[in-house]
């Protein structure tokens, strides 16, 4: 397997793996926040704020993979 073929396989698979990881993380964050809101509805604002921040942190990992894909995309062909 040469470099181009490896890249052509690796980029989509890599971004998919990153998305899986982020998805699991986001699911956990979302479920935790929903449970917290369910227990303490009056704290919804604060919980949502924290949830958005942590969700952004978790989501950023997929974005890194995405950016890397775009940086390396030109080297496939």
């Amino acid at each position: 397997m040469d470099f181009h073929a490896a890249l052509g396989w690796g980029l989509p698979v890599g971004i998919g793996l990153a998305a899986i990881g982020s998805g699991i993380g986001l699911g956990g964050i979302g479920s935790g926040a929903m449970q917290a809101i369910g227990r303490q509805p009056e704290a919804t604002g604060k919980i949502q704020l924290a949830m958005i921040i942590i969700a952004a942190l978790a989501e950023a990992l997929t974005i890194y993979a995405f950016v890397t894909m775009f940086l390396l995309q030109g080297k496939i062909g």
Partner: protein
Amino acid sequence: MGLEFLARVRRTTGWVTGLAALWTATYASPSLGLAVLLGAAWSLVNLFLLEKLVVALTGPWRSERSARRRLTLAVAGMLALFVAGAGLLARVAPTGALVGFTIPMGVIVLKAAALLLLPSKLWKRVADATPRAVGLWVALLLVVVVGAGALVAHVTASGEDSASTPAVTAAPSAPTAGHGEPGEEGPQKFANLLTVLSRAFPEAPWARFLHHYEVVIFSLLVAFLVCLVAYLASRRAELIPKPFQNAVEAVVEALNDFIVGILGPRYGPRYVPFLGTLFIYILAMNLFGLIPFMDSPTSNLNVTVGLALVVFVYAQTIGIRELGVVGYIDHLAGNPRTAISWGLVPLMLPIHVMGELAKPISLSCRLFGNIFGEDMLLVAFVTLGITTLSFLHLPIGLPLQLPFLFLALLTSTLQALVFTVLSTIYFLLMLPHEEHGSEGGAQHAH
């Protein structure tokens, strides 16, 4: 047919001409589009002078001196206009100019026909029943699409026979994702105004300059627009605000409450101007890409790195100013108070320094990746929509990107919010705080 009919004709002609000129400039050649524009402008001025002439001749003040002066002016203007028209025909492409000349005439004829048709019994019978009206619309649309498709296919075929410029393949506004041109780096985005200009004038140095610095130009444009809105809203501030001032005040107040809610009443008001401006500016830049022929400056890594660097430097400045140099280093060392934490300083110091350096990287990459990815998603679906209808040989496509435009609205707002909130929290972590040490930051938000 009164004067208000003429005003409506002028308005419609303006729209039709703008679209036609844009279409021609995009799919045929820029000079032809310019010719269409100039021809229509000529025709409109002609119409305007004719109107003045008729008013001066038949108006209620036709016997007064001012009417006679206006009459003379109109006649002289028309003579000058005819000379200008001759020069125009000699200078620009005659076909385009002639098409432009006929646009207002066509609009008048169509509008007059509509005026005759609309009150007629036949039209009422068709328009009153919904299914019949829908059927009529669909039939009309089909006829237009198929007819225009046949026409364009015919024109392209004959154009390729005579080996002139192929019309559709030279379309700059059609996104050509995937196979970028040799001069371009990376994947292609939507063509914006400056890209179109630089392709229309590939040799001109000013066009290349504009294309090269398009991100700077667009971000300055956004900044100018934000400044303009702020200036207009606060120019004549009133105690009982007008709707515009009210809306801007509501935004400022919401941002103020939000940021003071995180930073606390002591330090909050000092940083509201910076952080609020950051939010509004980033939001405007993100949304700017959704305007046709515009581009989000934030879908370029240079812009987001610049923004994140500003936040980074400001956060360090705040740390040094509020904590002092010793306190700042103490903060980076993890506030060692006990023997164990002093022992951990060689470990904590590099970790904290790395953490500080990672913040701008993650801020900039997150914003860039989200906005750029959103643009790429739209490009992909627009391309798909165009490919779906490519058998028609028409510059139209299925609007498959529509749901993703709403997604783009959501991500634009969310990413602006996330950038601002994270910046606020980086500031918060730098500010002196009673129970310090925890890195989460979110639990400080009280």
